[in-house]
């Protein structure tokens, strides 16, 4: 079981006195798109940050292809929330994508022509090639998100963590993201996406992780994304969903 791309064992995270995540365990098989679903404050972003060691874990382990995450950093790509960086930074879209290559280029070395070519290809895949030289603050929110995704592509990792990539983007970008997710999947990548919109869960994800401080349910979307589980996750506050989106 440990050879799965991602295995999380009994992870507990606390800020000061409050437990934010309690005893979270799950494992993800190769080549799956996984939606992380839960209400605000359920610890979705915290889960990603704790897996990546940005915040200390009180307890628990993260294994990537059978090895502790610390040894396998290069296999994991992270797409943070768009507002986590300062978009006034003096740089252009191509440059940001090129940053995804830094792990491959190696410390203290310069990017080569192949890296630039690859970055261009990644920009092309998200439909951003015409904007390669544009300063990043001049891009729309959706375009910025696509630049971030292109950067993740350029990183060429095996597992991706994406924190709310669909928030505040236009329809074109949403479509581009979905396409990209499917492409990653066909290339055998494993993708974990923090997601808000319950309506689209069935369409986008193979697996779901329903989270509210603890794992409420985890498994294939078909069997796990049920009315009962969602009610349990959201504390009975979800009433607006039509039955077409949910089984049961």
């Amino acid at each position, binding site marked *: 079981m440990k050879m799965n791309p991602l295995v999380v064992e*009994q992870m*507990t995270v*606390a800020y000061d*006195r409050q437990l934010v995540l309690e*005893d979270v365990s799950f494992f993800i098989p190769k080549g799956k798109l996984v939606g992380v679903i839960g209400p605000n404050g359920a610890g979705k972003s915290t889960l990603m940050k704790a897996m990546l060691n940005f915040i200390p874990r*009180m*307890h628990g382990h993260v294994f990537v292809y059978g090895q502790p995450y610390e040894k396998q950093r290069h296999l994991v790509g992270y797409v943070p929330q768009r507002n986590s960086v*300062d978009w*006034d930074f003096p740089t252009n879209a191509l440059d940001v994508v090129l940053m995804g290559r830094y792990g491959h280029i190696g410390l203290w070395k310069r990017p080569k022509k192949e890296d630039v070519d690859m970055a261009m290809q990644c920009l092309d895949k998200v439909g951003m090639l015409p904007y390669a030289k544009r300063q990043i*603050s001049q891009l729309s929110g959706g375009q910025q998100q696509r630049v971030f995704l292109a950067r993740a592509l350029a990183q060429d990792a095996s597992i991706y963590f994406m924190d709310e990539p669909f928030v505040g983007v236009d329809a074109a970008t949403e479509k581009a993201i979905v396409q990209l997710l499917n492409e990653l999947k066909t290339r055998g990548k494993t993708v974990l996406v923090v997601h808000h919109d319950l309506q689209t869960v069935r369409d986008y994800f193979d697996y779901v992780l329903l989270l509210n401080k603890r794992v409420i349910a985890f498994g294939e979307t078909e069997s796990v994304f049920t009315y009962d589980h969602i009610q349990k996750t959201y504390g009975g506050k979800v009433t607006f969903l039509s039955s077409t989106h949910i089984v049961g």
Partner: protein
Amino acid sequence: MNRMDINVQWVFTSMALLGLASGMIGTFALLKKQSLIGDAMAHAALPGICIAFLLYGQKSLLLFLIGAACSGYIATICIQFIVKHTRVKEDAAIGIVLSVFFGLGIVLLTWINQHEGGNQSGIHDFLFGKAASLTGSDVNVLTVTAVTVIIMILIFFKEFKIITFDRAFAQGIGISVSLLNGVLMFLIVSVVVIGLQAVGVVLMSALLITPALAARYWTEKLEWMTLLAGGFGALSGVAGAYISLIAYAPTGPLVIIFATMLFIFSFLFAPKRGLCSKMIRRHIERKKLQSQQLMYKRGEQL
């Protein structure tokens, strides 16, 4: 009582009052996350003081105060303007205004020294602080200002509390936030100006925030925090003045070192919020959690 004793008394009284006023007003500066604004204002006061001297031709603490208040106010406007209208962020805006205003002050100061026989101006004491140089009339102005500031804080306490905690809500219930912010800024500038002569440009910001920061560790109530910060400030002022008297070292830095020691003590040992009690608590909770998990596991095995 000889003259020496009177001077010492002056210094003690003014340091205590200054510490009290700056600790109290500093509480609000700290909670509004404007600790470094105090630093900017202390530096920005210098050109105002110099211009006041150039216009009036001799030292007058009251006029210096007005001059400093004007340039301090202009400095705040500049910072807000830069942040609002350019891509330059607040930290850089503060740095720009602070250093450029101070540079202008130094230029004016050297001009005064060249042209106006400024060695008698006493402006120099404002740069580095010299509590011992306080004269009777200085002490009068200082006392009046400090007491006024304290009274103003007491009068507007409720309003300051709400604009510090929740600006939008304050606006919603019809409080004029910009006016009160202006009043608060003016009080901070006033304290900065009377403090400059005692502790100097660089250390003035510490007199505002260090006692307030120390007080933060002991209480969760703004009322107590304000009082405690004032008390810490006054204590630091008197202690610093006393040590400086027996050790023949400058007053200002000693006041700040004493205040910092109060902060370190509070930071480490305050009940509830202090580092030590936090660590002990975390340790206990971890133990509790571990034993809980152990129980779960045993339950599962059974």
